[in-house]
C-alpha cells in the first residue's frame, strides 16, 4: 500500500513542473487505487523525498475524507424511507470539483487548468487534480453530469406549480428542458466535454449517466409502466436528450428556444411512433383472440 503511493508521489511531484498542460498520466491506475491514494496521504503536503519517507507517511495527519466507497453508478432498489446511498464522489473530490465547476469552468472550460485554479482557490497544491484518477477532466465532466442529475428533483419541486397541471408526456418535456437549461452556464464548453465523454474509456460512464438521467426524468414525471415499454421509453428519451444536448451547443437563438422546439418535435415523433406500434400490437392481439374464440365457438377444444 505505501510503496505504490510513494511511487505515485514522485510521479505527481514530477508533474508539478509540467502542469498544467501535461497529459501523460499513469493510465493503468484504476479508480479504487485513486481512492486509496487520497485517503492514505494528505493532499495539502508535498513529500520532499518520497522514496525514503514512504514508511513514515502513515504518521502524518490524514485528510478529512470518508473511507473509500465503491463507485456507485448502478441504479438499484430505491428505498422511500432509508437514507440514500452515498455519493460516488468523496468529500474532498466534491469540494474541489464544485469549486472548479462554479468558478472556473465558464471561463476555462472542462480543462486541467480549471481544476488547477480551483485547487489554488482552496489553497491546495497544483498537483491535487491528479488524485481525481487517470483522467481528471473526465471525472470533472462526470461530476457535472452527476450533480445536474441529482439536483433535478429539487428543480422539479421548484417548478411543481408548472408540472402539476401537465400530462406525463408534458412533464417529461418540461423536465428534460429543465435539465438542458442546467447546461446553460457552460454551454460554450459542452461540445468539448461531449468529445471527452465520447472517448472509448469514458463511454460506459457517459452511457450509464444518460440512462440514469432518463430514468430520473420518468420517475419524476410519475410514469408507472413496468412492462417492456419501461425499456423502450427510457431508450427513446436517452436518444432524444442526447440529440437535443448536441443541438443546444450550436443554438444561438434567444433563450435556446430553437432547442426547445427541437426537443418538442423529437418527443412528438417518438410519441407518434410509440402510438403506431401500440396500435399494431392491439390489432394483432385482438385478431388473434377473436380467431381463437371463433374456433372455440365451433367446438374445437382449444
Amino acid at each position, binding site marked *: 500500500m505505501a510503496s505504490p503511493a510513494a511511487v505515485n508521489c514522485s510521479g505527481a511531484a514530477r508533474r508539478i513542473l509540467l502542469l498544467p498542460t501535461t497529459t501523460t498520466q499513469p493510465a493503468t491506475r484504476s479508480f479504487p487505487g485513486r481512492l486509496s491514494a487520497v485517503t492514505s496521504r494528505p493532499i495539502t503536503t508535498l513529500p520532499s523525498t518520497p522514496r525514503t519517507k514512504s514508511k513514515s507517511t502513515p504518521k502524518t495527519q490524514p485528510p478529512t475524507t470518508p473511507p473509500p466507497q465503491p463507485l456507485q453508478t448502478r*441504479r*438499484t*432498489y430505491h428505498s422511500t424511507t*432509508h437514507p440514500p*446511498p452515498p455519493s460516488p464522489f468523496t468529500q474532498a473530490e466534491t469540494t474541489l470539483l464544485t469549486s472548479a465547476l462554479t468558478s472556473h469552468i465558464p471561463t476555462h472550460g472542462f480543462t486541467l487548468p480549471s481544476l488547477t485554479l480551483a485547487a489554488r482557490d482552496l489553497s491546495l497544491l497544483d498537483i491535487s487534480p491528479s488524485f481525481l484518477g487517470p483522467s481528471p477532466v473526465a471525472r470533472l465532466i462526470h461530476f457535472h453530469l452527476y450533480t445536474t442529475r441529482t439536483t433535478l428533483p429539487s428543480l422539479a419541486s421548484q417548478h411543481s406549480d408548472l408540472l402539476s397541471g401537465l400530462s406525463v408526456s408534458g412533464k417529461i418535456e418540461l423536465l428534460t428542458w429543465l435539465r438542458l437549461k442546467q447546461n446553460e452556464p457552460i454551454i460554450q464548453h459542452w461540445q468539448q466535454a461531449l468529445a471527452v465523454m465520447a472517448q472509448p474509456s469514458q463511454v460506459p460512464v457517459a452511457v450509464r449517466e444518460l440512462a440514469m438521467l432518463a*430514468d430520473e426524468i420518468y420517475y419524476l414525471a410519475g410514469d408507472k409502466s*413496468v412492462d417492456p415499454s419501461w425499456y423502450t421509453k427510457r431508450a427513446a428519451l436517452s436518444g432524444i436528450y442526447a440529440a437535443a444536448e448536441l443541438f443546444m451547443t450550436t443554438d444561438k437563438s434567444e433563450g435556446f428556444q430553437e432547442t426547445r422546439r427541437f426537443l418538442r418535435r423529437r418527443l412528438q415523433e417518438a410519441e407518434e411512433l410509440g402510438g403506431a406500434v401500440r396500435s399494431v400490437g392491439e390489432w394483432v392481439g385482438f385478431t388473434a383472440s377473436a380467431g381463437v374464440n371463433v374456433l372455440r365457438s365451433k367446438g374445437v377444444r382449444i
Partner: protein
Amino acid sequence: MASPRRLLRTARQLTSIKTPLLTSQFPRHVSTTPSPPSPSPPSPPLPPKNLKPLTESQREMLSSFLRVNQAGELAATLIYTAQTPPILAREPHLRPLMKHMYDQEADHLRVFNSLIAKHRVRPTALYPLWSVLATGLGWSTAVMGKEAAMACTEAVETEIGGHYNAQIRELLKMVSEWEAEGYDVGEEFTELISTLRRIRDEELEHLDHAVEHDAQKAEPHWLLTGVIRAGCRGAIWVSERV
C-alpha cells in the same frame, strides 16, 4: 381462508406422499411463519426513525427479489388465463376455483407492479419471453386434461412457495441484523415481509386446491411435475439476474 399453519401442515403431508416439498427442502431453517401473537413488535409511529442506509448488496438483493416476483406473478396470471377456457370446456364446475385462483394471482401481480414502480426497480428484460412461455405452459397442460393442469399448478406453486420462503428468510435475516445493531426497522420492510407472507400463504393454498383436484392422478405425474419444477427453477434463476 385457510390458516398458514394448516397450509404448511398440508405441505408436510404432501411430502410424505410423493414430492419433496418445502419442509424437506429447508429442514434446518427456522420457520418464516410468525408466531400467533404479533408478527413484529409494535413500533412507535411518530418519532423519527434511526434507519440504516441500505448497502449496495442489499439493494441488489431487493431489486432481484421484486423483479423475479413480478415476473413470477405475471407468469402465474398468464398460466391461469390460458388454462381456464380449455378446462372449463370440459369441467364447467371448476369455474369458481379457477376464477378464485386467477383473481388472487392478478392481485399479486398488481402488488408487485406497484412495488416495482415505487422502488424504481428495473422490470425483467425477458418479459415477452416469460409471457409466451407461461401462456404456452398453461394452455398445453390444460389441453392435456384437468389432472395435468392441476399437476402444473402443483409443481409451480411448490417452487414458488419455497422461493417466497427463501426470500422471507433473507429479509428476516437483514431485519434482525439491523435490530441487533440498534437500528429501527421501518414500515417499508415490515410491510414487505408481511406482504410476502400473505402471498406465500395464498400460493400454498393454490397448491392445496390443486392436490384436492386430482393433481396427483396426472399421468405421468413425476415427469410433468419434474419438468415444470425444473423449468420454474431455471426461470427464477434467470429472472433474478436479467
